[in-house]
């Protein structure tokens, strides 16, 4: 094996190995744990950077390992996987810093960081999966690695939330597995190939292929929180803030959305999927989810739950983009994978900061918090505006492309109203929060002030990550046309998928 | 076809079936053990009948050897079963 074959393995291993070592560290060995975490994160970033460069120049990075005859574990870097890997890697680094600050002196840190690293490894593996079989393996591993994180606090509520999470995701995993096995029996090893591989199958397979598509999408839809499969997501918010941030804004829900993108583009092929009439159904499911999530978010007083429902809504933009035939819709969907991640992680970080610093868990407790914590609230505001789709924050770019794509594909009739309704609803559940935070008078006392007012807001480790990600959200919007920007990369993906 | 052979083999089948029935229906452990032994006897009868070649002819020695082995195995199993039954009785008497 040469470097090209080792690189994907190393990208996965750079979080896996530190994670395994961390399990065996003494609880008090804070320094070693931090060192391992950060070293792994930085190393991964370096490796991924080299991979970005290579994939752009059409280098093939691929590792194969046979698990059974005909069943190969394939790690393969293409444009789409690199996009997701980069997102995960960058946000892992930021979240690790945040988590170190967040969990200072909390119990069970070795266990936490061990599983945290496993989670990231599973996400990266899933991103790099070169066929559906490999994807399924990492998809299940992600479930397994996140369960302990959701249950981490050990309260009966946490264990219950984790159980619900598990019931949904394992159930979904089973459907995905059945669909994959079925497809495997019909078509052999289903490698991810740009443009899809199933179009060549004879026409009498088409009814079966439709059934399989349904199984796969429902299986993936659980993690992507498509309505009505979204029930676990609000329950899983009992997890500690860094977990909510990385896993439920990025890793887990994105794994589902990413899977949908893979299945439509690289297994079925978007044109073949359209020909089978599968895209409309997907689009409608996505549209319903977008509206439903936004409406539900409107009624949540608990900040994390409001964000969770917002996630339900926003992740479906990706599915919507996938369902819109044509490169521009694709760009909108794919780029939203990145944009939504950056914005949503910012929101979860800041929500964690409010809870940790002042004990604020509810929207109704946020009056005047902007004066006490201006930097945090500024980050929150940028991300929230981005979610609504206010230019020049990143969210605007995605919505613009989705709308444009829908018009181009002749689907504007129903996509545009959905986009507009969603934006209005986004505004309706975010703007009042901003108004409270900035313009309302604070109450006499904060619910539980953990950090004295004399300090500037909160720990540096908690403060900087949201600020950085908010800046990133702004930058990806402002410099959307710069080389290697998410938008440029999404355009590259769309070009390769459509063979342009 | 040798009538003798068939008759003894049939008796073996009957013993086997009787033994199975007893082993399934009896409540007492000792009676079950007896039943299983009778079942064994049925199988042995069957095997020895198979070995029989007729008057004045040497029988097939292989089933004879198998049955000898079987008898010792059966008595071993009976001994262990009885020891267990006895221990169970002691445990029950103790409370």
């Amino acid at each position, binding site marked *: 094996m040469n470097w090209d074959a080792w690189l994907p393995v190393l990208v996965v291993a750079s979080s896996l190995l530190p994670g395994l070592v961390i399990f065996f560290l003494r609880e008090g060995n804070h320094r070693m744990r931090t060192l391992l975490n950060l070293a792994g994160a930085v190393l991964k970033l370096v490796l991924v950077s080299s991979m970005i460069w290579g994939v752009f120049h059409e280098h093939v990075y691929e590792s194969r390992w046979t698990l059974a005859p005909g069943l190969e574990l394939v790690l393969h870097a293409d444009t789409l996987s690199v996009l997701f890997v980069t997102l995960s890697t960058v946000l892992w680094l930021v979240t690790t810093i945040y988590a170190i600050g967040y969990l200072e002196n909390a119990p069970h840190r070795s266990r936490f960081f061990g599983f945290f690293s496993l989670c990231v490894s599973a996400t990266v593996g899933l991103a790099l999966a070169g066929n559906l079989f490999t994807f399924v393996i990492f998809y299940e591993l992600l479930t397994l690695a996140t369960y302990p994180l959701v249950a981490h606090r050990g309260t009966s509520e946490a264990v219950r939330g984790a159980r619900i999470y598990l019931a949904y995701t394992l159930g979904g995993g089973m459907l995905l597995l059945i669909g994959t096995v079925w497809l495997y029996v019909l078509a052999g090893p289903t490698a991810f190939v740009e443009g899809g591989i199933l179009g060549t199958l004879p026409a009498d397979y088409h009814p079966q292929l439709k059934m399989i598509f349904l199984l796969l999408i429902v299986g993936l839809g659980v993690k992507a929180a498509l309505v009505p499969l979204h029930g676990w997501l609000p329950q899983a918010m009992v997890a500690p803030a860094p977990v909510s941030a990385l896993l439920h804004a990025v890793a887990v829900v994105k794994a589902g959305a990413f899977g949908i993108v893979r299945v439509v583009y690289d297994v079925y092929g978007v044109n073949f999927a359209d020909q089978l009439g599968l895209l409309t159904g997907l689009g409608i499911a996505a549209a319903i989810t977008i509206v439903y999530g936004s409406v539900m978010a409107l009624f949540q007083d608990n900040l994390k739950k409001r964000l969770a429902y917002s996630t339900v809504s926003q992740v479906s933009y990706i599915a919507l983009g996938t369902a819109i035939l044509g490169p521009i819709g694709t760009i909108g969907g794919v780029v939203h994978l990145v944009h939504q991640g950056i914005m949503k992680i910012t929101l979860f970080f800041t929500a964690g900061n409010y809870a940790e610093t002042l004990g604020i868990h509810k929207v109704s407790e946020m009056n005047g918090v902007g004066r006490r914590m201006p930097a945090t609230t500024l980050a929150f505001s940028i991300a929230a505006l981005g979610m609504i789709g206010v230019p020049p924050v990143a969210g605007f770019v995605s919505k613009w492309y989705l709308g444009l794509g829908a018009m181009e594909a002749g689907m504007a009739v129903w996509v545009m109203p959905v986009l507009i309704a969603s934006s209005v609803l986004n505004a309706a559940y975010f703007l009042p929060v901003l108004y409270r935070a900035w313009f309302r008078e604070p109450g006499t006392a904060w619910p539980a002030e953990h950090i004295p007012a004399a300090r500037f807001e909160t720990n540096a480790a908690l403060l900087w990550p949201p600020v950085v990600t908010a800046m990133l959200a702004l930058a990806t919007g402002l410099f959307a046309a710069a080389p290697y920007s998410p938008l440029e990369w999404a355009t590259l993906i769309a070009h390769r998928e459509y063979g342009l | 076809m040798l009538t003798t052979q068939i008759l003894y083999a049939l008796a073996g089948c009957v013993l086997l079936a009787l033994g199975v029935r007893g082993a399934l229906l009896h409540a007492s452990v000792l009676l079950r053990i*007896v039943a299983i032994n009778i079942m064994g006897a049925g199988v042995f009868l069957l095997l020895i009948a198979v070995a029989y070649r007729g008057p004045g002819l040497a029988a097939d020695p292989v089933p004879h050897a198998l*049955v000898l082995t079987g008898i010792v195995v059966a008595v071993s199993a009976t001994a262990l079963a009885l020891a267990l039954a*006895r221990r169970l009785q002691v445990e029950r008497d103790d409370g």
Partner: protein
Amino acid sequence: MNSAGLIVFDALLLLSIVGLAWASLATTDVRRSIILFMALGLVLAVAWGRLLAPDVALAEAAIGAGLSGALLLAAAHGQPSPLPPESTNAPRNHGAAGMGMVLRWAITLLCAALAGTLVWALLHAFSNPQHDMLPRAISANLAASGVSNPVTAVLLNFRAYDTLLELAVLLTAVLGTFALGQATPGYRPAGLVFDGLVRWLVPVLILTAGYLLWAGAHAPGGAFQAGATLAAAGVVLRLAGRTRIGLPVGFMLRMIMAAGVGVFLLVGLTLLLLGRPFLGYPPAWAGSLILMIETAAMFSIAATLLLAFLGGQPESTDVNAVANRQREEDPRC
């Protein structure tokens, strides 16, 4: 005996076999059932003789009827007799009793079907000419086996591996019995007449055992029959209330228990190390090796059968003594 007489004899024998088996299983009185079972064993021994299987007849008489019966009777010793039927313990439930009847009949029908199928299959098997490839191969190789009794040749040469494992089964049973606890206390001392009988019977049994062992090479007999006879001597002594019944204790006892399997295995492995197959005796040595194995096996069999009869390890074996001391202070919950 003429052929008509033979038919009557066969009919009587078969009737008593089936009748005894039926009677033994029909009763709920444990002791009655056991005695009928022992009688069945004796009748079976006659049947083996009738079917020209004298080796089996000897073994059945000694082990099947004798020792198994003795074991069962010893176990029944502590049982209430006759055993009260299960249903008297609880108020009779008509529904459950109905279910019970259904189950009884279902099982009976199942067993009848089993017997029917077996008979059907056997009739088919017997309708073909008998397979005598294996008996012929045995006669052809008998000269090389070291013994002239074909049954002994099969047991200790051609299928010696079976016999090795069978000795291991016997050892396992006794070790399992040991693990379950103490030997039963001896029976009360016998009366004067029985005592006289014992003095006379035991040496005869021991001599018989020796003869059977030696005869096994060329005539019916062998280690198992001999071992069982030797064990019978011990059983008689025990029944007479003797506490010392010729069994050593401690290491020596374990040596005797292990001897059967041990010598067998040692012979097999030695031959293997000498470049022959496992248990592949050189024809010139086969007779002596078999006798050696059989002698060791006889002592092991006698000891283990006797121990099984005692139902546990005799007192003052060192391992057990430790057990007695330690059982009280076992702290594990």
